[in-house]
């Protein structure tokens, strides 16, 4: 039972660490260039932290997709892969299944989790809504990494309407 909490603590520290290390490095020239320049530097750093988190999640997802479907048989189609993500992967990482999976059958899937374990400790409503996306970047990476190992190139984004429910949108990139 304590194992789930270890990952939550580690994740919280990861987000805190990556965010703490980009206070705006030179406020001087930024200030003289106007709010646009200084604001641009700050935002650029935040975007990089989000993509660093997502990259970490990507590598973890790749390894998990290799290790998890060991005895299960080969996946026949895309929907099978998404179902595997919602059931087996989510249970392995968060000890619960995804609450709902919807699709438009044209390459877009929406995975909804009504009580996301990484957000459930923060609030249950609209407080801290702006801070929530940082805590979802790593998980988006896990989804994208797992899909990529299983042969599906995709783009994963997350959105929060009200904590702790969140939606992950997976768009399959067919080229």
């Amino acid at each position: 039972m304590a194992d789930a909490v270890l990952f939550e603590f580690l994740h919280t520290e990861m987000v805190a660490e990556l965010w703490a290390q980009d206070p705006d490095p030179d406020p001087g020239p930024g200030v003289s260039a106007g709010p646009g320049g200084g604001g641009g530097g700050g935002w650029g750093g935040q975007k990089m932290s989000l993509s660093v988190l997502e990259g970490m999640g990507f590598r973890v997802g790749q390894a998990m997709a290799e290790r998890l479907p060991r005895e299960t048989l080969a996946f026949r189609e895309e929907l099978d892969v998404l179902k595997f993500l919602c059931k087996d992967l989510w249970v392995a990482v968060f000890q619960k299944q995804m609450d709902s999976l919807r699709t438009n059958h044209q390459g877009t899937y929406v995975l909804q989790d009504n009580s996301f374990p990484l957000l459930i400790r923060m609030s249950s409503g609209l407080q801290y809504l702006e801070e929530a996306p940082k805590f979802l970047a790593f998980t988006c990476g896990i989804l994208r990494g797992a899909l990529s190992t299983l042969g599906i190139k995709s783009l994963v984004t997350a959105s929060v309407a009200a904590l702790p429910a969140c939606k992950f949108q997976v768009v399959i990139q067919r080229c």
Partner: protein
Amino acid sequence: MAVCVAVIAKENYPLYIRSVPMENELKFHYMVHTSLDVVDEKVSAMGKALVDQRELYLGLLYPTEDYKVYGYVTNSKVKFVMVVDSSNTALRDNEIRSMFRKLHNSYTDVMCNPFYNPGDRIQSRAFDSMVTSMMIQVC
């Protein structure tokens, strides 16, 4: 028991290939390369035939007069190909399956290694020693 073991990536380039009698390496490389066609054929046949038994183990790919070639595909489309000596008739199907299972487990460990970038050649010594243990019975 195996004479040659190869791990082939999704894009059909070798991640790891090793054969025991060091002289005829090229012949084994060629055999593995030609067996990839058979693997692809089996994998696509599995998709079309509505067989419930979607197995990872592909079985005997093709026999030659000296050697037999076995295949196994993982869910991430990484293929393992094993060439065994035909004279070793005591080798049963479950033994081959268990060898592939050990290979799959070791490959998963390699993937989970943070120092390994997916897509690079496998240089892990642990993987090497596991493959040696599978090949060393040939004398």
